[in-house]
């Protein structure tokens, strides 16, 4: 769902850049109060894994593909503030090294896939799983919502930019991403179940895991 340059007008990408910068800045401030040094290697591994998984487009239907975003995966393991920073790091690398996502659209891509996907997915996950116990159903629904809400945000940015009317872009984007979100849910549940099985201490407090790796 990486928006290229040219899809967003100046007011939209500048606004998105501003909201993203403020959110990431707030996230960094929060992490400086609570992020433990021993979680650093895990942050590296999760970021590397999400980058790799994002390269794997899976076919969905009718000649369309999707790939993992990974925002809820990161948020469920590391917490939402870390997840915002992990996703932003990945999106910056994809933008400047791989030209995946436009340079002017970087703020919007961070907003959609790093901030809105993270918080939208995480809120739903915690609503369904109040103990933060990494319950598969809650993870699946949270992951699905993270993709769909991210697609909704992208649609709004495209429409506000005057690229395409709201009434056209919203149903089309939601249709495809409702399907792609199923893949997101399956991968998120599979990966967390695997980690839970082989390395449960890493996740012993759910999303508040101690990060022992």
């Amino acid at each position, binding site marked *: 769902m990486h928006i290229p340059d040219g899809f967003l007008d100046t007011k939209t990408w500048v606004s998105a850049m501003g909201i993203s910068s403020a959110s990431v800045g707030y996230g960094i401030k929060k992490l400086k109060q609570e992020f433990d040094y021993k979680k650093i290697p*895990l942050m590296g*591994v999760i970021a590397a894994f999400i*980058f790799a998984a994002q*390269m*794997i487009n899976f076919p969905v239907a009718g000649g369309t593909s999707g790939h993992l975003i990974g925002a809820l995966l990161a948020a469920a393991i590391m917490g939402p503030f870390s997840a915002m920073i992990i996703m932003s790091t990945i999106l910056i690398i994809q933008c400047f090294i*791989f030209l995946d996502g436009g340079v002017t659209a970087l703020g919007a891509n961070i907003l959609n896939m790093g901030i809105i996907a993270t918080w939208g997915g995480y809120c739903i996950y915690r609503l369904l799983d109040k103990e933060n116990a990494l319950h598969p159903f809650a993870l699946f629904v949270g992951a699905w919502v993270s993709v769909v809400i991210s697609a909704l945000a992208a649609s709004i940015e495209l429409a506000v930019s005057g690229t395409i009317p709201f009434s056209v872009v919203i149903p089309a984007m939601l249709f495809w*991403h409702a399907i792609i979100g199923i893949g997101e849910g399956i991968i998120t549940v599979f990966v967390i179940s695997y980690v839970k099985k082989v390395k449960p201490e890493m996740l012993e407090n759910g999303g508040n895991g101690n990060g022992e*790796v």
Partner: protein
Amino acid sequence: MEKFNSIVVGLLIALIIGVFLSPFASSFPDGLERVAEDKGFIKSAVDSGFPSLIADYTFPGVENEKLATSLAGFIGVIVTFVAAIAVGKAVARKESR
């Protein structure tokens, strides 16, 4: 030692996906590209003109397409790992060191 092992295993899994699975990824348009094609605004996309090292996950100068993607995946996984560690070090709570 155990800590070291888990990090190495995790990184190896990421590398296996990025290097060996990535050449077989679907080349169908993703959700946004599909909508942009169907609704006729794909032409709005412009090249940022930003000088990139590995545009579109294809390592330059490598004729074999699958190998070019694998190399891009390898570099991307390592760069992301190192960058996230550096970011983690920059944001971690100082007293927790």
